């Protein structure tokens, strides 16, 4: 895994230095679970569960800073009725179509589904 250098972000936003350090460790731990070394994606729901005592507004800003710094990009994925992510990913939630196939290739109505942003590392 080529670690992302959070220092430039921490210099611009020193109030988030500790949180950035914690995030770097969290990412490193998650990366160890992969067979191939690579930076893992970030699902904000996992962060919220891992850090239940951290203000979620602050976490939202932190994730935004990562995107703004060019380290990650955001894609949007839809949760199927059975609770897993559908395969398609969208750069903008407004691009989500009315119907999408689930894992069994059966189409479901996305209006009753949920959408989550996923942060993907930007390959350099």
């Amino acid at each position, binding site marked *: 895994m080529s670690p992302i250098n959070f220092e430039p972000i921490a210099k611009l936003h020193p109030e988030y230095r500790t949180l950035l350090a914690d995030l770097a460790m969290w990412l490193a731990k998650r990366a160890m679970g992969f067979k191939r070394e690579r930076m893992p994606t970030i699902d904000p729901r996992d962060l*919220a*569960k891992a850090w*239940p005592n951290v203000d979620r507004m602050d976490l939202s800003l932190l994730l935004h800073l990562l995107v703004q710094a060019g380290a990650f990009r955001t894609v949007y994925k839809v949760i199927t009725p059975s609770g897993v992510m559908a395969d398609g990913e969208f750069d903008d939630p407004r691009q989500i179509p009315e119907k999408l196939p689930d894992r069994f290739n059966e189409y479901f109505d996305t209006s009753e*589904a949920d959408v989550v*942003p996923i942060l993907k590392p930007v390959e350099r």
Partner: protein
Amino acid sequence: MNAQDWANARTIIAGAYAKIEAGGGKVRIKQAVFNELTEAGYPDLAEMLMSYSAMEGAVSVSDKPIINIINSQVGNLNLGSQIGNINTSLSVVSQQGASGKDFAEAVKAVTEAVLGAAELNDAQKKEAVQSLEFISQEAATPPEQRKTGVLRTVVESIPKVLSAAASAVAIWAKYGSHIRLFFGF
């Protein structure tokens, strides 16, 4: 973003999130609120709103922190990330039927016993919590990918670490079998 900007941004995001909640929180309403913020010249806030909304939705009542740390129990020990990892893993495992629920309940009971055991010193508490973190993470991993040999050794080491604390030993005697049973040994 300075402090004032951030304070304003929080207010805007909170207001937009309230609209999402009132509308049922599904895709269509999120798309509409996202669009509203973007067209009002706040694309950054629209993006933050989506993360915030996902995080708020993720922490339902059943997913609230399973293990609560009381400051006095851990003294100067910083076990926040380990406890966070245990909670995350237990949230996953507790969805895996009755044995998963029993396992989650057992790890929760043992972890809380460790944190509350006055007879254990900081190093012993840290070692025990790290072991519980490891077995929780392994439990959340598909069986075929588990490091079974290491896992068995770590599980067997826990009662030895706890032996200095009668209360924790009693909790292990009650719950340890659930942990072993879950892993099949």
